[in-house]
Protein backbone atom coordinates (compact mmCIF):
# COMPACT_ATOMS: atom_id res chain seq x y z
CA UNK A 1 0.00 0.00 0.00
CA UNK A 2 1.38 3.40 -0.95
CA UNK A 3 -0.26 6.78 -0.72
CA UNK A 4 -1.01 8.28 -4.13
CA UNK A 5 1.37 10.85 -5.62
CA UNK A 6 0.63 13.63 -8.10
CA UNK A 7 1.28 11.19 -10.96
CA UNK A 8 -1.14 8.67 -9.42
CA UNK A 9 -3.83 11.34 -9.29
CA UNK A 10 -3.20 12.29 -12.91
CA UNK A 11 -3.42 8.65 -14.01
CA UNK A 12 -6.75 8.35 -12.20
CA UNK A 13 -8.04 11.51 -13.89
CA UNK A 14 -6.84 10.34 -17.32
CA UNK A 15 -8.47 6.94 -16.80
CA UNK A 16 -11.62 8.76 -15.66
CA UNK A 17 -11.84 6.60 -12.53
CA UNK A 18 -11.91 9.78 -10.44
CA UNK A 19 -12.41 13.50 -10.95
CA UNK A 20 -10.83 16.38 -9.02
CA UNK A 21 -14.29 17.16 -7.67
CA UNK A 22 -14.67 13.66 -6.23
CA UNK A 23 -11.21 13.84 -4.62
CA UNK A 24 -12.05 17.24 -3.11
CA UNK A 25 -15.39 15.99 -1.75
CA UNK A 26 -13.66 13.00 -0.19
CA UNK A 27 -11.10 15.32 1.41
CA UNK A 28 -13.82 17.50 2.92
CA UNK A 29 -15.59 14.44 4.35
CA UNK A 30 -12.40 13.45 6.19
CA UNK A 31 -12.86 16.35 8.66
CA UNK A 32 -9.45 17.95 7.98
CA UNK A 33 -9.94 20.60 10.68
CA UNK A 34 -10.22 18.11 13.48
CA UNK A 35 -10.11 14.49 12.42
CA UNK A 36 -7.34 12.27 13.75
CA UNK A 37 -4.48 14.41 12.39
CA UNK A 38 -5.58 17.96 13.31
CA UNK A 39 -3.54 19.24 10.37
CA UNK A 40 -5.70 22.09 9.00
CA UNK A 41 -6.77 25.24 10.84
CA UNK A 42 -9.04 26.72 8.14
CA UNK A 43 -10.83 25.07 5.24
CA UNK A 44 -13.48 26.79 3.15
CA UNK A 45 -15.53 24.05 1.46
CA UNK A 46 -17.04 26.49 -1.05
CA UNK A 47 -13.61 27.67 -2.21
CA UNK A 48 -12.27 24.11 -2.38
CA UNK A 49 -15.25 22.81 -4.34
CA UNK A 50 -15.23 25.79 -6.74
CA UNK A 51 -11.57 25.16 -7.65
CA UNK A 52 -12.19 21.42 -7.94
CA UNK A 53 -15.19 21.99 -10.22
CA UNK A 54 -13.09 24.32 -12.41
CA UNK A 55 -10.35 21.69 -12.71
CA UNK A 56 -12.87 18.94 -13.44
CA UNK A 57 -14.40 21.06 -16.19
CA UNK A 58 -10.94 21.85 -17.57
CA UNK A 59 -10.30 18.11 -18.01
CA UNK A 60 -13.79 17.45 -19.42
CA UNK A 61 -13.15 20.14 -22.02
CA UNK A 62 -10.17 18.15 -23.21
CA UNK A 63 -7.63 20.83 -22.32
CA UNK A 64 -4.07 19.66 -21.66
CA UNK A 65 -3.65 18.97 -17.92
CA UNK A 66 -1.56 21.58 -16.15
CA UNK A 67 1.36 20.42 -13.94
CA UNK A 68 -0.73 20.31 -10.74
CA UNK A 69 -4.13 19.72 -12.35
CA UNK A 70 -6.69 18.74 -9.74
CA UNK A 71 -4.08 18.31 -7.00
CA UNK A 72 -5.04 19.26 -3.44
CA UNK A 73 -2.34 21.46 -1.92
CA UNK A 74 -2.32 22.52 1.72
CA UNK A 75 -0.74 25.87 2.60
CA UNK A 76 0.93 26.71 5.91
CA UNK A 77 -0.78 29.41 7.96
CA UNK A 78 2.09 31.84 7.32
CA UNK A 79 1.22 32.23 3.62
CA UNK A 80 -1.61 34.40 2.30
CA UNK A 81 -4.41 32.71 0.37
CA UNK A 82 -7.27 34.91 -0.84
CA UNK A 83 -10.41 34.32 1.23
CA UNK A 84 -8.48 32.93 4.21
CA UNK A 85 -6.73 34.53 7.19
CA UNK A 86 -3.10 34.17 8.22
CA UNK A 87 -2.47 33.64 11.94
CA UNK A 88 1.14 32.43 12.13
CA UNK A 89 0.23 29.94 14.83
CA UNK A 90 -0.84 32.67 17.24
CA UNK A 91 -4.06 33.55 18.96
CA UNK A 92 -3.75 37.30 18.42
CA UNK A 93 -2.77 37.75 14.78
CA UNK A 94 -5.38 37.26 12.12
CA UNK A 95 -4.62 38.94 8.84
CA UNK A 96 -7.38 38.52 6.27
CA UNK A 97 -5.88 38.01 2.83
CA UNK A 98 -7.65 39.68 -0.04
CA UNK A 99 -5.06 38.45 -2.54
CA UNK A 100 -3.04 35.30 -3.07
CA UNK A 101 0.67 35.52 -2.48
CA UNK A 102 2.61 35.11 -5.72
CA UNK A 103 3.51 31.53 -4.87
CA UNK A 104 -0.16 30.65 -4.26
CA UNK A 105 -1.19 32.31 -7.52
CA UNK A 106 1.41 30.14 -9.29
CA UNK A 107 -0.04 26.99 -7.69
CA UNK A 108 -3.56 27.88 -8.79
CA UNK A 109 -2.40 28.77 -12.31
CA UNK A 110 -0.84 25.30 -12.47
CA UNK A 111 -4.22 23.72 -11.76
CA UNK A 112 -3.82 23.12 -8.02
CA UNK A 113 -6.77 23.15 -5.62
CA UNK A 114 -5.84 24.99 -2.43
CA UNK A 115 -7.22 22.69 0.27
CA UNK A 116 -6.92 25.23 3.11
CA UNK A 117 -4.56 26.66 5.69
CA UNK A 118 -2.44 24.28 7.75
CA UNK A 119 -1.58 24.45 11.42
CA UNK A 120 1.83 25.62 12.56
CA UNK A 121 3.61 26.40 15.81
CA UNK A 122 3.42 29.76 17.58
CA UNK A 123 5.23 32.30 15.35
CA UNK A 124 6.95 29.29 13.77
CA UNK A 125 9.28 28.98 16.75
CA UNK A 126 8.99 25.31 17.77
CA UNK A 127 10.72 22.49 15.90
CA UNK A 128 8.78 20.00 18.06
CA UNK A 129 5.44 20.80 16.45
CA UNK A 130 3.44 21.46 19.63
CA UNK A 131 1.24 24.54 19.73
CA UNK A 132 0.13 25.30 23.31
CA UNK A 133 -2.47 27.77 22.06
CA UNK A 134 -4.52 24.88 20.71
CA UNK A 135 -4.18 22.44 17.87
CA UNK A 136 -1.11 20.24 17.75
CA UNK A 137 -1.09 18.11 14.58
CA UNK A 138 -0.70 14.39 15.22
CA UNK A 139 1.95 12.20 13.64
CA UNK A 140 0.21 9.67 11.33
CA UNK A 141 2.81 7.04 12.29
CA UNK A 142 1.88 7.38 15.98
CA UNK A 143 -0.97 9.69 16.88
CA UNK A 144 0.41 10.20 20.39
CA UNK A 145 3.52 11.93 18.98
CA UNK A 146 4.05 15.32 17.33
CA UNK A 147 5.01 15.87 13.69
CA UNK A 148 7.93 18.23 14.19
CA UNK A 149 7.68 21.91 13.34
CA UNK A 150 7.05 24.43 12.42
CA UNK A 151 5.26 23.22 9.25
CA UNK A 152 3.59 20.61 11.45
CA UNK A 153 0.18 20.48 9.74
CA UNK A 154 1.87 20.45 6.33
CA UNK A 155 3.91 17.36 7.22
CA UNK A 156 0.98 15.58 8.84
CA UNK A 157 -1.35 16.18 5.89
CA UNK A 158 1.04 14.78 3.27
CA UNK A 159 2.03 11.79 5.40
CA UNK A 160 -1.61 11.04 6.23
CA UNK A 161 -2.81 11.15 2.62
CA UNK A 162 -5.01 14.23 3.02
CA UNK A 163 -3.11 16.07 0.28
CA UNK A 164 -0.25 14.96 -2.00
CA UNK A 165 1.43 18.34 -1.55
CA UNK A 166 1.83 20.97 1.14
CA UNK A 167 3.67 24.27 1.07
CA UNK A 168 5.56 25.16 4.22
CA UNK A 169 8.03 27.82 5.22
CA UNK A 170 11.46 27.03 6.63
CA UNK A 171 13.37 29.45 8.87
CA UNK A 172 15.38 26.83 10.78
CA UNK A 173 14.34 23.45 9.38
CA UNK A 174 10.57 23.70 9.12
CA UNK A 175 10.10 22.03 5.72
CA UNK A 176 12.68 19.34 6.58
CA UNK A 177 11.99 18.40 10.22
CA UNK A 178 8.27 17.48 9.79
CA UNK A 179 8.99 15.41 6.64
CA UNK A 180 11.78 13.58 8.50
CA UNK A 181 9.52 12.79 11.46
CA UNK A 182 6.54 11.88 9.24
CA UNK A 183 8.31 9.81 6.54
CA UNK A 184 7.88 12.10 3.51
CA UNK A 185 10.02 14.44 1.35
CA UNK A 186 10.67 18.16 1.90
CA UNK A 187 12.64 20.73 -0.11
CA UNK A 188 13.95 24.04 1.21
CA UNK A 189 15.02 25.85 -1.96
CA UNK A 190 17.80 28.43 -2.24
CA UNK A 191 16.91 31.72 -0.52
CA UNK A 192 14.81 33.83 -2.88
CA UNK A 193 14.02 31.12 -5.46
CA UNK A 194 10.40 31.10 -4.26
CA UNK A 195 9.07 34.62 -3.57
CA UNK A 196 7.30 35.79 -0.40
CA UNK A 197 4.98 38.79 -0.52
CA UNK A 198 2.29 38.10 2.09
CA UNK A 199 0.86 40.75 4.40
CA UNK A 200 1.58 38.96 7.68
CA UNK A 201 5.01 39.83 9.09
CA UNK A 202 6.37 37.88 12.05
CA UNK A 203 10.07 38.30 11.29
CA UNK A 204 12.32 35.53 9.93
CA UNK A 205 13.34 38.14 7.33
CA UNK A 206 16.77 36.75 6.46
CA UNK A 207 15.98 33.09 7.12
CA UNK A 208 12.56 32.30 5.64
CA UNK A 209 12.36 29.89 2.69
CA UNK A 210 9.01 28.61 1.37
CA UNK A 211 9.16 25.10 -0.01
CA UNK A 212 7.13 21.99 -0.85
CA UNK A 213 6.48 18.80 1.13
CA UNK A 214 5.53 15.75 -0.94
CA UNK A 215 5.45 11.96 -1.12
CA UNK A 216 8.20 11.56 -3.73
CA UNK A 217 11.08 13.43 -5.35
CA UNK A 218 9.24 13.81 -8.64
CA UNK A 219 6.38 15.66 -6.92
CA UNK A 220 8.85 17.92 -5.12
CA UNK A 221 10.44 18.72 -8.49
CA UNK A 222 7.08 19.52 -10.07
CA UNK A 223 6.09 21.74 -7.18
CA UNK A 224 9.47 23.47 -7.18
CA UNK A 225 9.31 24.31 -10.88
CA UNK A 226 5.78 25.73 -10.38
CA UNK A 227 6.68 27.70 -7.25
CA UNK A 228 9.89 29.12 -8.72
CA UNK A 229 8.41 29.65 -12.21
CA UNK A 230 11.28 27.67 -13.71
CA UNK A 231 11.52 24.93 -16.33
CA UNK A 232 10.72 21.33 -15.28
CA UNK A 233 13.81 19.49 -14.10
CA UNK A 234 15.31 16.30 -15.51
CA UNK A 235 15.79 13.97 -12.53
CA UNK A 236 17.78 11.37 -14.41
CA UNK A 237 21.12 13.17 -14.64
CA UNK A 238 22.71 12.30 -11.31
CA UNK A 239 25.65 10.26 -12.63
CA UNK A 240 28.97 11.08 -11.00
CA UNK A 241 27.57 13.05 -8.08
CA UNK A 242 30.24 13.43 -5.40
CA UNK A 243 28.83 13.10 -1.87
CA UNK A 244 30.56 14.48 1.24
CA UNK A 245 30.06 13.92 4.95
CA UNK A 246 31.47 15.98 7.83
CA UNK A 247 31.68 13.17 10.39
CA UNK A 248 32.48 15.61 13.21
CA UNK A 249 29.22 17.48 12.50
CA UNK A 250 27.37 14.14 12.05
CA UNK A 251 28.37 13.41 15.66
CA UNK A 252 26.29 10.99 17.68
CA UNK A 253 22.60 11.03 16.72
CA UNK A 254 20.26 8.49 18.34
CA UNK A 255 21.39 5.01 17.36
CA UNK A 256 18.38 4.18 15.19
CA UNK A 257 18.85 7.43 13.22
CA UNK A 258 22.59 6.83 12.91
CA UNK A 259 22.04 3.30 11.63
CA UNK A 260 19.42 4.23 9.03
CA UNK A 261 21.33 7.25 7.75
CA UNK A 262 24.71 5.50 7.57
CA UNK A 263 23.03 2.64 5.73
CA UNK A 264 21.75 5.12 3.15
CA UNK A 265 25.00 7.07 2.81
CA UNK A 266 27.72 4.44 2.82
CA UNK A 267 26.85 2.98 -0.62
CA UNK A 268 27.41 6.50 -2.00
CA UNK A 269 31.07 6.24 -0.90
CA UNK A 270 31.13 9.66 0.77
CA UNK A 271 34.23 11.84 0.86
CA UNK A 272 35.15 13.14 4.32
CA UNK A 273 34.93 16.94 4.51
CA UNK A 274 35.07 19.46 7.35
CA UNK A 275 33.25 22.71 8.05
CA UNK A 276 35.55 24.23 10.64
CA UNK A 277 33.13 26.62 12.33
CA UNK A 278 29.94 24.54 12.12
CA UNK A 279 29.61 25.03 15.90
CA UNK A 280 28.71 28.69 15.29
CA UNK A 281 25.49 27.74 13.50
CA UNK A 282 23.43 27.37 16.69
CA UNK A 283 24.19 30.77 18.14
CA UNK A 284 24.06 32.58 14.78
CA UNK A 285 20.61 31.10 14.05
CA UNK A 286 19.17 31.75 17.51
CA UNK A 287 20.40 35.33 17.66
CA UNK A 288 19.09 36.03 14.15
CA UNK A 289 15.70 34.40 14.74
CA UNK A 290 14.80 35.86 18.10
CA UNK A 291 16.02 39.35 17.18
CA UNK A 292 14.03 39.37 13.94
CA UNK A 293 10.86 37.84 15.43
CA UNK A 294 10.93 40.03 18.57
CA UNK A 295 11.34 43.13 16.42
CA UNK A 296 8.52 42.14 14.05
CA UNK A 297 5.91 41.40 16.71
CA UNK A 298 6.96 43.97 19.33
CA UNK A 299 4.11 46.37 18.62
CA UNK A 300 1.50 43.62 18.82
CA UNK A 301 2.87 41.88 21.91
CA UNK A 302 4.89 44.44 23.83
CA UNK A 303 1.95 46.04 25.59
CA UNK A 304 0.11 42.80 26.24
CA UNK A 305 2.48 39.87 26.69
CA UNK A 306 -0.39 37.61 27.74
CA UNK A 307 -1.09 37.24 24.03
CA UNK A 308 1.86 34.85 23.90
CA UNK A 309 2.45 31.46 25.50
CA UNK A 310 4.83 31.61 28.50
CA UNK A 311 7.68 30.13 26.45
CA UNK A 312 7.40 32.87 23.85
CA UNK A 313 7.02 35.53 26.54
CA UNK A 314 10.31 34.42 28.08
CA UNK A 315 12.08 34.05 24.74
CA UNK A 316 11.05 37.39 23.32
CA UNK A 317 11.69 39.24 26.60
CA UNK A 318 15.21 37.87 26.63
CA UNK A 319 15.68 38.81 22.98
CA UNK A 320 15.72 42.45 23.97
CA UNK A 321 19.10 41.94 25.63
CA UNK A 322 20.72 40.98 22.34
CA UNK A 323 22.70 44.01 21.24
CA UNK A 324 23.02 45.38 17.73
CA UNK A 325 26.70 44.43 17.87
CA UNK A 326 25.80 40.82 18.65
CA UNK A 327 23.19 40.65 15.91
CA UNK A 328 25.69 41.98 13.40
CA UNK A 329 28.42 39.60 14.61
CA UNK A 330 25.93 36.77 14.05
CA UNK A 331 25.55 38.03 10.48
CA UNK A 332 29.34 38.00 10.07
CA UNK A 333 29.38 34.44 11.41
CA UNK A 334 26.90 33.56 8.65
CA UNK A 335 29.35 34.89 6.06
CA UNK A 336 32.10 32.76 7.60
CA UNK A 337 29.90 29.65 7.50
CA UNK A 338 28.77 30.34 3.94
CA UNK A 339 32.38 30.62 2.78
CA UNK A 340 33.22 27.34 4.46
CA UNK A 341 30.25 25.68 2.78
CA UNK A 342 31.37 27.16 -0.56
CA UNK A 343 34.78 25.62 0.05
CA UNK A 344 33.25 22.20 0.73
CA UNK A 345 31.05 22.50 -2.37
CA UNK A 346 34.21 22.97 -4.43
CA UNK A 347 35.09 19.38 -3.41
CA UNK A 348 31.68 17.67 -3.40
CA UNK A 349 28.30 18.19 -5.07
CA UNK A 350 26.15 17.20 -2.10
CA UNK A 351 26.75 17.32 1.64
CA UNK A 352 24.82 14.73 3.64
CA UNK A 353 23.71 14.61 7.29
CA UNK A 354 20.78 13.09 9.16
CA UNK A 355 17.87 15.56 9.02
CA UNK A 356 17.28 15.23 12.76
CA UNK A 357 19.20 13.40 15.47
CA UNK A 358 16.06 11.70 16.79
CA UNK A 359 12.72 10.33 15.63
CA UNK A 360 9.37 11.87 16.63
CA UNK A 361 9.62 12.22 20.42
CA UNK A 362 7.36 10.52 22.94
CA UNK A 363 5.42 13.20 24.79
CA UNK A 364 2.70 12.93 27.38
CA UNK A 365 -0.79 14.02 26.36
CA UNK A 366 -0.32 17.17 28.46
CA UNK A 367 2.97 17.93 26.75
CA UNK A 368 1.21 17.62 23.37
CA UNK A 369 -1.04 20.54 24.33
CA UNK A 370 0.99 22.67 26.75
CA UNK A 371 4.19 24.69 26.68
CA UNK A 372 7.38 22.69 27.10
CA UNK A 373 11.02 23.68 27.06
CA UNK A 374 13.38 20.75 26.51
CA UNK A 375 16.89 21.81 25.60
CA UNK A 376 18.06 18.31 24.68
CA UNK A 377 15.10 17.67 22.40
CA UNK A 378 15.43 21.05 20.68
CA UNK A 379 19.11 20.32 20.08
CA UNK A 380 18.38 16.92 18.56
CA UNK A 381 15.70 18.27 16.22
CA UNK A 382 17.79 21.16 14.90
CA UNK A 383 21.31 19.68 15.05
CA UNK A 384 21.64 19.70 11.25
CA UNK A 385 19.08 22.12 9.85
CA UNK A 386 20.26 25.65 10.76
CA UNK A 387 23.22 26.02 8.34
CA UNK A 388 21.05 25.87 5.22
CA UNK A 389 18.95 28.75 6.58
CA UNK A 390 21.98 30.77 7.63
CA UNK A 391 23.70 30.37 4.27
CA UNK A 392 20.62 30.16 2.02
CA UNK A 393 21.82 27.05 0.19
CA UNK A 394 19.18 24.46 -0.77
CA UNK A 395 18.50 21.38 1.37
CA UNK A 396 16.19 18.41 1.03
CA UNK A 397 15.01 15.72 3.44
CA UNK A 398 14.34 12.21 2.15
CA UNK A 399 12.85 9.38 4.23
CA UNK A 400 15.26 6.48 4.81
CA UNK A 401 13.09 3.92 6.54
CA UNK A 402 12.05 3.68 10.16
CA UNK A 403 13.42 2.80 13.58
CA UNK A 404 12.43 -0.57 15.12
CA UNK A 405 9.22 1.02 16.47
CA UNK A 406 8.16 2.08 12.98
CA UNK A 407 8.95 5.78 13.41
CA UNK A 408 10.41 7.47 10.29
CA UNK A 409 14.01 8.63 9.90
CA UNK A 410 15.10 11.42 7.53
CA UNK A 411 18.35 12.05 5.65
CA UNK A 412 19.31 15.62 4.70
CA UNK A 413 21.00 16.48 1.39
CA UNK A 414 22.53 19.95 0.90
CA UNK A 415 23.85 21.42 -2.37
CA UNK A 416 25.42 24.65 -3.63
CA UNK A 417 23.20 27.69 -4.18
CA UNK A 418 20.66 27.29 -7.03
CA UNK A 419 21.47 23.58 -7.52
CA UNK A 420 18.09 22.16 -6.52
CA UNK A 421 18.45 19.98 -9.64
CA UNK A 422 21.36 18.12 -8.02
CA UNK A 423 19.42 17.52 -4.80
CA UNK A 424 16.28 16.37 -6.58
CA UNK A 425 18.30 14.14 -8.93
CA UNK A 426 20.01 12.39 -6.02
CA UNK A 427 16.73 12.09 -4.09
CA UNK A 428 15.09 10.48 -7.14
CA UNK A 429 18.01 8.07 -7.51
CA UNK A 430 17.80 7.07 -3.84
CA UNK A 431 14.09 6.50 -4.34
CA UNK A 432 14.63 4.35 -7.45
CA UNK A 433 17.17 2.26 -5.54
CA UNK A 434 14.68 1.71 -2.70
CA UNK A 435 16.78 3.68 -0.21
CA UNK A 436 14.55 6.76 0.06
CA UNK A 437 11.34 5.18 1.21
CA UNK A 438 9.06 4.88 4.21
CA UNK A 439 6.13 2.52 4.81
CA UNK A 440 2.77 4.32 4.81
CA UNK A 441 1.42 5.11 8.25
CA UNK A 442 -1.15 2.99 10.02
CA UNK A 443 -3.47 5.99 10.29
CA UNK A 444 -4.25 7.49 6.91
CA UNK A 445 -6.85 8.93 4.58
CA UNK A 446 -7.43 7.17 1.29
CA UNK A 447 -7.87 9.94 -1.30
CA UNK A 448 -8.59 7.77 -4.36
Amino acid at each position, binding site marked *: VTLPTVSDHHRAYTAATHTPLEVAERFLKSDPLNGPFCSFIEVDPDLVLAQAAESTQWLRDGAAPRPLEGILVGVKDFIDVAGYSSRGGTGFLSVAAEQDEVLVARLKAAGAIVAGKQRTTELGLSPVGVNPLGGTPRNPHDLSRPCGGSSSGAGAAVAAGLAPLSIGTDGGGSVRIPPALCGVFGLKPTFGRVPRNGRMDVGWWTLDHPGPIARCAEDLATAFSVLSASEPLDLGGDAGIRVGVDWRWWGVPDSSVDEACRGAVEPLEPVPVEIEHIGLADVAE*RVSVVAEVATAVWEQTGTDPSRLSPTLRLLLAAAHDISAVEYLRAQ*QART*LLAREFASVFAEVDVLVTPTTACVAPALTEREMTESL*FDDELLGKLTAYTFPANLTGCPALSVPVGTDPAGLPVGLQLMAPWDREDVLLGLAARLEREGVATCPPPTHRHDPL
Partner: protein
Amino acid sequence: MALAPTRMSHRALETSARLLRLPGVRALVRSSFLEYIHLRALHEVQLQGLPVWRPEMRPSAPSDPPGDSP
Protein backbone atom coordinates in the same frame (compact mmCIF):
# COMPACT_ATOMS: atom_id res chain seq x y z
CA MET B 1 27.53 26.93 36.76
CA ALA B 2 24.88 26.95 34.06
CA LEU B 3 21.91 29.15 34.91
CA ALA B 4 19.71 27.85 32.11
CA PRO B 5 17.53 24.85 32.97
CA THR B 6 17.47 22.01 30.45
CA ARG B 7 13.79 21.14 30.77
CA MET B 8 10.84 23.21 31.97
CA SER B 9 7.20 22.17 32.22
CA HIS B 10 4.27 24.39 31.31
CA ARG B 11 3.76 25.31 34.96
CA ALA B 12 7.40 26.31 35.44
CA LEU B 13 7.36 28.34 32.25
CA GLU B 14 4.12 30.07 33.23
CA THR B 15 5.49 30.93 36.68
CA SER B 16 8.73 32.27 35.21
CA ALA B 17 6.85 34.33 32.65
CA ARG B 18 4.68 35.89 35.37
CA LEU B 19 7.77 36.75 37.41
CA LEU B 20 9.15 38.67 34.45
CA ARG B 21 7.36 41.69 35.92
CA LEU B 22 9.95 41.75 38.73
CA PRO B 23 13.11 43.53 37.57
CA GLY B 24 15.52 41.12 39.27
CA VAL B 25 13.83 38.07 37.78
CA ARG B 26 13.75 39.70 34.38
CA ALA B 27 17.51 40.20 34.49
CA LEU B 28 18.01 36.57 35.62
CA VAL B 29 15.82 35.18 32.84
CA ARG B 30 17.62 37.24 30.25
CA SER B 31 21.05 36.25 31.45
CA SER B 32 19.96 32.60 31.49
CA PHE B 33 18.74 32.89 27.93
CA LEU B 34 21.91 34.56 26.74
CA GLU B 35 23.91 31.81 28.39
CA TYR B 36 21.60 29.18 26.92
CA ILE B 37 22.20 30.35 23.36
CA HIS B 38 25.92 30.55 24.15
CA LEU B 39 26.17 34.15 23.03
CA ARG B 40 29.79 34.25 24.14
CA ALA B 41 30.70 32.03 21.19
CA LEU B 42 30.19 35.00 18.90
CA HIS B 43 33.01 36.80 20.68
CA GLU B 44 35.38 33.84 20.71
CA VAL B 45 35.87 33.66 16.93
CA GLN B 46 37.81 35.98 14.65
CA LEU B 47 35.12 37.66 12.55
CA GLN B 48 36.84 40.97 11.85
CA GLY B 49 36.87 41.93 8.18
CA LEU B 50 34.02 39.62 7.23
CA PRO B 51 31.08 41.27 5.47
CA VAL B 52 27.73 41.28 7.23
CA TRP B 53 25.63 38.53 5.65
CA ARG B 54 22.93 39.42 3.16
CA PRO B 55 20.65 36.56 2.10
CA GLU B 56 21.16 37.20 -1.60
CA MET B 57 24.92 36.62 -1.29
CA ARG B 58 26.58 33.81 -3.19
CA PRO B 59 29.77 33.32 -1.23
CA SER B 60 33.27 32.43 -2.28
CA ALA B 61 35.68 30.22 -0.36
CA PRO B 62 37.32 31.40 2.91
CA SER B 63 40.75 31.65 1.30
CA ASP B 64 39.53 34.38 -1.04
CA PRO B 65 40.10 38.03 -0.12
CA PRO B 66 37.28 39.82 1.74
CA GLY B 67 34.21 40.59 -0.33
CA ASP B 68 31.52 38.47 -1.87
CA SER B 69 30.33 38.09 -5.38
CA PRO B 70 26.78 39.38 -5.87
